[in-house]
């Protein structure tokens, strides 16, 4: 059982930061709805308030970590150009996808959409965290602002979901691999 360093960092980008953001989203929606829903009469103490702020800031940090690792760490490996004469495209995912008509759309639609749409998430998540910090419990008195934050949070989730889906499918068809091998365990010889 072994990993390559590139595979491990891709896992950290997608399953670490990205998936954790997507998981955190449901908690944020439930909490925002519980507090600020139309019939929301939940008592909100200072500790609850502090928790929500930390939760939303953590979500924003996760969103930033996801796009920054994706853009500056994984993407250069994905789009690497093979030297002339290289026939095995296994280490060049973009070229590998483009070399086959059955997989080329995973790049031309999947990656082309993912690389941009994913960036909408940290912008929206940062806005939600900033508004929560600024207004705190006072957000209850601003229903339109609350609705705007909720709508942005939902669209940010949708954008993250699109990026996550295509990330998983791209990694299935042309995984980013390479670098040093990290061996976790040695199998029994057959």
């Amino acid at each position: 059982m072994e990993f390559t360093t590139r595979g491990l960092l891709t896992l950290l980008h997608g399953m670490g930061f990205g998936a954790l953001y997507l998981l955190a989203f449901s908690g944020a929606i439930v909490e925002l709805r519980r507090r600020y829903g139309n019939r929301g009469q939940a008592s909100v103490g200072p500790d609850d308030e502090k928790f929500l702020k930390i939760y939303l800031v953590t979500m924003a940090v996760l969103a930033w970590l996801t796009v920054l690792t994706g853009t500056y760490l994984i993407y250069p490996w994905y789009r690497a150009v093979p030297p002339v004469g290289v026939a095995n495209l296994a280490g060049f995912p973009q070229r590998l996808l483009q070399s086959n008509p059955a997989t080329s759309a995973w790049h031309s639609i999947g990656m082309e959409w993912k690389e941009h749409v994913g960036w909408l998430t940290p912008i929206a998540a940062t806005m939600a965290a900033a508004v929560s910090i600024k207004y705190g419990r006072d957000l209850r008195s601003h229903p339109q602002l609350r609705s705007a934050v909720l709508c942005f949070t939902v669209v940010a989730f949708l954008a993250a979901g699109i990026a996550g889906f295509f990330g998983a499918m791209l990694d299935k068809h042309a995984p980013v691999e390479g670098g040093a091998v990290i061996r976790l365990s040695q199998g029994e010889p057959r």
Partner: protein
Amino acid sequence: MNPGGPVIPRPQATLPNGPGAAAVLSAGIGSFALSILAIVADKLPAIKSLLAFYKPTGPLSGVTTVAVLVWLAVWLILDRRWRARTVALGLVSAAALALLVLSLLLTFPPLADLL
């Protein structure tokens, strides 16, 4: 005695909605800037190479960096202007959300290719 339970008075807003509106609208504008920059970089080779701030990542580095700078600059400007004001938040939110949804659609390559 209220049979429906105790009446909890709605708290009065102590902060104007201006700073919140600035945050919401700037997020919409920043997102829209990202989608427009992505389209322009895709259509114009000169802009594409200009936006390749970090060669290994290519134009994506410039598209996202410029969009983030636009977002933060607009946020700063609007926040200064609206800090102590109450603005028409319904209109601002609708515009911001429309920009965000448009950004989501415009980053979809088959739609962007139609432009």
